[in-house]
């Protein structure tokens, strides 16, 4: 019997989450995430975006409703099984690095999965290669690396688990622009070349405009907007409720719509092109 109904990789059904002390963090969330998506989860601090992302990989179990990943219900599945499917990179790499050298750090995940030695080796080398670490780096002590390098080691250690989806919490906070672009380009490469689902939790709107295909805006524990990037940026009411603004270039486009510009522009290049089109008339 062939399954004609396409089921999403991550399916969130009427999910709510309450903290142990009683505060309601998430209310009745419904979402589905398919293979090949590049999603940005936006919203102010306290909106529930971090809580939601932790519910998606089983770090938090919903207090009601279900989160189904790859057919498995997070409530009924062990964390080890979940992280093989959805990886989570924390914002501050220092929260997770504890090994004496980069190799062991990246190998930690695969070893937790009880994989055989040569498999572990293959995965470590593979993951390191993707993030641009070389054999020289393997002996380094993570504590003494630069912030950017530590972040790469952290990402590699999640990649070594070979999940299908990766969630990254604030990939660009504290970085300068060239560094931010480098990290985002990795993630884009993972998405385009390796087929990963990428979910970034961020408030860096220019980055969202440039890389994310879909935006989920959250506020007060609920999903306020969910759709293609340009659509969500056009939904001023929802964004205002989420305490989020579109990137400045989109705002410029929106406020110049009366001049003939397309209010859905996402990049400087787009807007400049439009200018020449308008100018030509």
């Amino acid at each position, binding site marked *: 019997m062939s399954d004609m109904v396409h089921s999403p990789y991550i399916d969130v059904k009427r999910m709510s989450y309450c903290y142990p002390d009683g505060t309601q963090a998430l209310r009745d969330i419904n979402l589905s995430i398919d293979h090949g998506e590049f999603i940005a989860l936006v919203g*102010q*601090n*306290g909106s529930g975006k971090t809580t939601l992302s932790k519910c998606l990989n089983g770090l938090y179990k919903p207090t009601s409703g279900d989160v189904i990943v790859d057919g498995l219900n997070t409530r009924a599945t062990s964390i080890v099984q979940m992280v093989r499917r959805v990886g989570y990179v924390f914002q501050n790499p220092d929260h997770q690095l504890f090994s004496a050298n980069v190799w062991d750090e990246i190998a930690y995940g695969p070893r937790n999965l009880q994989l055989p030695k040569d498999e572990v080796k293959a995965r470590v080398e593979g993951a390191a290669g993707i993030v641009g670490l070389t054999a020289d780096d393997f002996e380094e002590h993570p504590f003494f690396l630069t*912030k*950017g390098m530590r972040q790469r080691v952290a990402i590699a250690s999640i990649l070594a688990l070979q999940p299908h989806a990766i969630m990254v919490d604030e990939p660009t*906070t*504290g*970085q*300068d*622009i*060239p*560094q931010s672009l480098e990290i985002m380009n990795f993630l884009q490469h993972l998405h385009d070349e390796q087929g990963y689902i990428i979910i970034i939790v961020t*408030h860096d*709107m*220019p980055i969202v405009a440039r890389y994310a295909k879909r935006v989920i805006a959250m506020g007060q524990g609920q999903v306020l907007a969910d759709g293609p990037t340009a659509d969500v940026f056009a939904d001023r009411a929802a964004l205002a409720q989420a*305490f*989020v*603004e579109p*990137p*400045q*270039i*989109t*705002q*410029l486009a929106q*406020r*110049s719509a009366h*001049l*003939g*510009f397309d209010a859905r522009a996402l990049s*400087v*290049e787009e*807007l*400049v092109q439009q*200018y*020449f089109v*308008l*100018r030509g008339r």
Partner: protein
Amino acid sequence: MPPIVEIENYSWRYLRAEQPALQDINLSIEEGTFVGVIGPNGSGKTTLANSLNGLIPGQYQGIKEGTVKIAGTEVDAYKPGELPQMVGVVFSDPEAQFTAMTVEDELVFGMENLGLSLAEIRERLDWVTDLTQLKPLLEKPPYEISGGQKQRVALAAVLAMMPRVMVLDEPTSMLDPVSRKRVFDVLARLKRESHNTVIVIEHNLENLVPLADRMILLHNGRVALDSETGLFFRQAATLEQAGVYPPGGIAFFHGLMQRGVYTGEIPLTLDAAVAALEGLIENRRHE
């Protein structure tokens, strides 16, 4: 009156570093100016900030050349405890800067260190909590307030010491956009109401550019660009080379400039950008 900040031929190399963090820095800042300092990570911005507040050479080991003068006196000539009264610093990590167990204690700490009387403390406390809108949070401990609120507390705590120069080293890099805006609102208010010299180091230019009178670009430890803000942002090529990405509005006009269709002033705010764009389109229509 000498400029409040006078840096001449200044170089600093951290001990055990191969390259100097700062080389041949010459800067002169008049009192009351609002200065923005930008540049890629590793360009020496934090080193510069720490050179102004005495942490360099006080806390860090290295080799210094040249002079750094605050209000005419060399930074290392100040007696311990005197320089914080002249130069206040706000750092980027809201957690690490919060050293007391309630907001009020944090605000009062610096003032007590200066030996102020109870009456003076009360007065300054009132002023600073009003400026930063912290009154409702005074009794709260650090684990009950957000990162953005902590940064406002840091700002207030430093302002309460009434330094003549305020240095802020990436004060909003760990904050969300709403908190970021609130911190800059305080800075805007400060700019309007007082005569402080404010030096802000930032990556996020959107909020900084409207406030800055002058912008300095650091690149590889040197001053690559230093001018009044409007002129600064005309230098599109230099900025791009140094890895600086201006806010969308400015970048758009750079794009036009680079294609030779725009020679006017670079608008520094979104409103100005819209107005400029309207002007351009209207002009085309009239041709």
